């Protein structure tokens, strides 16, 4: 009985406790659980919204390329942001009560710390229905998220190959050819390049254009009005410009064009932007701009006379400006060095420069190119019919004296008919007026200088060269024994110098430059583009991403291929035929725009 009494005594208040427990369950635990569930849902929705605004901000930054004016680009960005947000965050997502996201939630502004950076900020809010909290009068919760993305301005120089092989489609060869010569690669290239310019933002991006064959022509420095200057095609429409005037003809002086593009980017000097060179070529490089006079040592590359019985005899028959050969005591000072190229090195009047560009009137980047014994050396492509293993030293293509546009066909249809011949008085094996003189051995020369006028090394020392070059001391030898010599040694040197031109651009520390390359196949069988060379130039370690089966392997698997992880990595795309060229350009523009974000 006592136990029962004790138990009863002990159980006193149990009901109260149970009641309190029940009350706590109803008013504390269940609400807490409800709150936890509601908050969980709110966080889940917020995570989804954050992903939505991030995607919207990036898409908006990409859309800054759409539109001809800054205002229309901002509108494009706002429209894109709304479209992408709605795709990522449907209005019925998890029982959303309402979503607030419109064009007014998208702001576009120049970054305060980098004038070449556009910042896009996207914000959104939503009222989220609650499940449990509504029992306590809280029917909805406000959720918000903000996403930000930036887009760097792109400063691009397009370097387009307008060599004669661009006029060959496998059955028809009509050199020179233009945009109006339908069906030939030159016309397709022009169309594709206009699509490329159509992908970028007029008014904020900068695009310039260089075209090259043996000579190069700077159509336009990088300009923000590139669509009206160069022409374009995109979903908004199309326009005509300098691209429509490109005419294709003759050789492939890739290294000079690359070096000019590099120096143009350096002069444009927008380090906060994404600086790129976009190279398109359908063949092997075969030309370089060389200087055969070394002013620091006062020596020439001419074959020296020999001393026979106290008298200088033999040697090159080239004469200096006083008419004396080396054997006659000529070439004794810089004052008598002949002007092999006929134009002044004042680039305001240079034939390959668009004279409307005031950029060139003062001490421009090319004022360092010496005048004198300077000229283009072109070699035949491997196995090229009629000129196999030959080359033409001192092409006359750079010697135009009147202000013309060498990329234009002119009235006679020949882009070079107005050129004045280069003058190499007395020389036996150098071109000297009229048509180029093709020789198997440039007997006037003892060697080729180790670099072209832009400093591109024919046998680079900073890394293992792609091709093997035989040297003569510090100069490039002109060997006469061995297979295909001396052509082969020069050919290898041109390949290396072209590779080095991209290396120089990529290693610029002030303005890192990314090189993109498009190789166009199918135009020529004697000198198609070398994928390994273009992989190297673009510093692209990947294999062929464009074709199936792959036309080339990853760089690590290719003999002679090398890339540098510390340098900007570009993209190489190989278009097997002109039919793939537009898609190749679009692939490159896509890659450039990716990097710009």
């Amino acid at each position, binding site marked *: 009985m006592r136990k029962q009494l004790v138990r009863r005594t002990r159980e006193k208040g149990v009901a109260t406790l149970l009641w309190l427990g029940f009350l706590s369950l109803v008013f504390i635990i269940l609400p807490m659980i409800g709150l936890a569930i509601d908050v969980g849902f709110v966080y889940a929705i917020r995570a989804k919204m954050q992903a939505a605004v991030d*995607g919207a901000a990036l898409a908006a930054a990409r859309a800054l390329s759409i539109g001809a004016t800054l205002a229309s680009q901002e509108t494009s960005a706002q429209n894109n942001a709304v479209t992408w947000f709605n795709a990522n965050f449907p209005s019925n997502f998890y029982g959303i009560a309402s979503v607030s996201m419109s064009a007014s939630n998208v702001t576009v502004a120049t970054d305060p710390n980098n004038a070449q950076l556009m910042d896009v900020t996207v914000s959104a809010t939503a009222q989220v229905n609650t499940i449990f909290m509504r029992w306590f009068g809280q029917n909805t919760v406000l959720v918000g998220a903000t996403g930000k993305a930036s887009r760097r301005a792109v400063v691009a120089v397009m370097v387009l190959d307008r060599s004669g092989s661009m006029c060959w489609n496998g059955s028809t060869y009509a050199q020179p050819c233009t945009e109006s010569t339908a069906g030939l690669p030159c016309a397709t290239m022009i*169309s594709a390049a206009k699509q490329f310019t159509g992908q970028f933002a007029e008014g904020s991006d900068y695009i310039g254009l260089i075209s090259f064959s043996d000579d190069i022509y700077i159509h336009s420095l990088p300009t923000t009005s590139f669509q009206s200057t160069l022409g374009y095609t995109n979903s908004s429409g199309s326009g005509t410009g300098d691209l429509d005037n490109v005419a294709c003809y003759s050789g492939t002086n890739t290294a000079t064009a690359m070096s000019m593009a590099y120096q143009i980017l350096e002069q444009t000097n927008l380090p906060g932007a994404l600086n790129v060179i976009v190279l398109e070529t359908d063949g092997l490089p075969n030309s370089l701009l060389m200087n055969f006079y070394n002013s620091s040592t006062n020596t020439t590359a001419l074959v020296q006379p020999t001393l026979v019985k106290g008298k200088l005899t033999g040697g090159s028959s080239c004469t200096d400006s006083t008419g004396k050969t080396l054997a006659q005591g000529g070439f004794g000072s810089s004052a008598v060095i002949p002007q092999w190229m006929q134009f002044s090195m004042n680039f305001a009047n240079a034939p390959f420069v668009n004279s409307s560009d005031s950029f060139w009137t003062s001490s421009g980047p090319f004022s360092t190119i010496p005048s004198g014994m300077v000229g283009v050396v072109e070699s035949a492509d491997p196995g090229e019919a009629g000129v196999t293993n030959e080359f033409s030293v001192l092409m006359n293509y750079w010697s135009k004296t009147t202000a013309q546009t060498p990329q234009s066909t002119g009235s006679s249809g020949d882009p070079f008919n107005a050129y004045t011949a280069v003058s190499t008085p007395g020389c036996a094996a150098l071109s000297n007026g009229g048509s180029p003189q093709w020789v198997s051995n440039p007997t006037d020369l003892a060697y080729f200088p180790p670099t072209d006028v832009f400093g591109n090394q024919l046998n680079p020392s900073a890394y293992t060269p792609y091709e093997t070059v035989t040297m003569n001391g510090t100069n490039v030898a002109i060997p006469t024994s061995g297979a295909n010599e001396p052509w082969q040694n020069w050919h290898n040197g041109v390949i290396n110098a072209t590779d080095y031109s991209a290396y120089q651009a990529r290693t610029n520390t002030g303005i890192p430059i990314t090189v993109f390359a498009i190789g166009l196949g199918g135009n020529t069988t004697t000198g198609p583009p070398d994928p390994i060379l273009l992989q190297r130039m673009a510093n692209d370690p990947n294999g062929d991403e464009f074709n199936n089966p792959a036309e080339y392997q990853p760089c690590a698997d290719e003999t002679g291929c090398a890339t540098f992880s510390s340098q900007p990595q570009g993209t190489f795309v190989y278009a097997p035929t002109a039919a793939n060229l537009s898609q190749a350009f679009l692939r490159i523009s896509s890659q450039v725009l990716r990097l710009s974000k």
Partner: protein
Amino acid sequence: MNGEDMSLYPIPISSRRTRRERGNEIIEFALLLSLLAPMLLWVFINGMNLIKIIEASQVCRDIGNLYIHGVDFSTYDAQQVATTLASGFGLQIGSSFSGNSATNDANSGNGLVIVSEIMYAGSSACSALPSGTTCTNENKYVFLQRIYFGNSSLTFNGNTVASALGTPAATINSYGYVENYLTDPNAVSATAGNYITLADTQVAYVSETFFSSPNLGFASYPGGGVYNRTFF
């Protein structure tokens, strides 16, 4: 009671009730438990799934963000980055491979990742074709790239998961790039337009992630796994 006659002491009413109430605590506890246990279990499962939803959403966003910035998910290294991002979700990518593979999806595990690049091919896009070539896919959404990695046999509620954008039957190279996307009808995405509207030549990058949660799966919530899709 020291041998005293208990009948001399009448049992109080409260004591009688107490006797009758013996075991009530257990019953009450059982009743309460029957209510609380499922509720706590439900809360636990929902809580875990909510955490998974939040994490999966972030994983999908991060993979898409990497993708749009040029990370090549056809390489094993890039896919390893994705598995690191998705740690805890059971995304498996198999043994290491060199080079590129657009379909590393014959693995076990509880995750599948699909990244795609789509474009609306209007007249401007079609102008990229040489003259005389018919632009079969004009005014359609086409795949430019498609890469899978993880476990493509994954099922949600018994159904094998699949991209909401469809599966391109066109030829895809090892980098995931779709060939002849303007002329091959197998490169068309019939459903992309249901989710997003693009202008001519406009491109969208899409990441999709599928993560099943077999250990905590509720048949009806949320579909046996967590699916996320983010357009960039």
